[in-house]
């Protein structure tokens, strides 16, 4: 289990790991693979339409997670490849890097997946993702008008998020 130790929430945002406007985009998925939120700050290249892009992203994360669960060199009992796993079960991953971008990934116990795509030279963003999850809890989950599982339409959440991501990456 890689979930947050204890119930403490970080009240202040973690210090920035890079300066400048390096955030590309952010996805929030729920556990059924529905894209709750998609924010885009700097994305010159669009290869697919939005819906296909979200599907492909969720599929990539799902498959990478089953790959890391199967590959885990520290545990002997790994089960079969491709068997769906509960959030927090099996070895997961927190980021991958290509020559053009870095993708940071976090899954919460309730199966919410937060994905932040940044410049490849960005540092460790695990704390930042926890902070973004915090924002999600504060601005979305605690909003009485929000129906769980529906796309997020909160102006306040979006502006806070934009501001925060501009600050970290």
């Amino acid at each position, binding site marked *: 289990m890689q979930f947050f130790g204890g119930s403490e929430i970080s009240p202040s945002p973690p210090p920035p790991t890079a300066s400048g406007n390096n955030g590309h985009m952010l996805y929030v998925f729920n556990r059924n693979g529905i894209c709750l939120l998609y924010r885009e700050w700097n994305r010159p290249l669009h290869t697919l339409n939005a819906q296909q*892009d979200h599907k492909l992203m969720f599929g990539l994360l799902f498959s990478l997670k089953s790959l890391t669960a199967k590959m885990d*060199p520290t545990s002997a009992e790994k089960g079969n490849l491709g068997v769906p796993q509960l959030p927090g079960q099996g070895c997961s991953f927190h980021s991958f890097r290509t020559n053009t971008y870095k993708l940071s990934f976090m899954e919460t116990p309730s199966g919410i997946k937060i994905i932040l795509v940044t410049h490849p030279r960005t540092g460790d963003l695990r704390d930042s993702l926890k902070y973004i999850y915090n924002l999600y809890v504060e601005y979305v989950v605690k909003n009485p008008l929000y129906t769980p599982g529906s796309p997020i339409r909160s102006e306040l959440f979006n502006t806070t998020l934009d501001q925060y991501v501009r600050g970290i990456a």
Partner: protein
Amino acid sequence: MVSFNSSEFAKFKIIKSFNIEAATVIQVPRWVFRFSKRLLGFGMAAIYSLYIINKSGGLIYYKDYGSAGRMDTNDTLRVASLWHSMHAISQQLSPVSGCSGIELLQADTFDLHCFQSLTGTKFFAVCEPGTQQIESLLKFVYELYTDYVLKNPFYEIEMPIRCELFDIILTQSVQKDRVALLGQ
């Protein structure tokens, strides 16, 4: 890159034609040790396993260096082709053009470093989190691959690698690092 001098190549031919127990004949060239030392200087940590996949995603070489719960052959094949697809999908999702696929995957208990050669052959190693110098090790493995596999006249391209010299030199250069690590 190294080239075989005539005596080395002669040994190579003898082994291939008479199937002599390779370890008794082969002397590992000096530069292999030099390279291992260079890696040791940076404090290289453990590698769990090494994969080579061809340009269509088929596993052509797999070596396990002691991970818990070894995978069977079918699983390694599946994992290799899954990695091939994930590598391709990651290129499609890039926000900017010119993406050449995943280079480093950081999981909770391991790091996966991947190196893709110009011809599309992928070399990837599973190692302890935070291990440095794996990129240079993968490039070194690529160098060994070009020298000991591709220059082997009996090797069929894109097919599983069964070359004794390659096996021996690879094992020696990786194992030396592990032995040094255990001694620390």
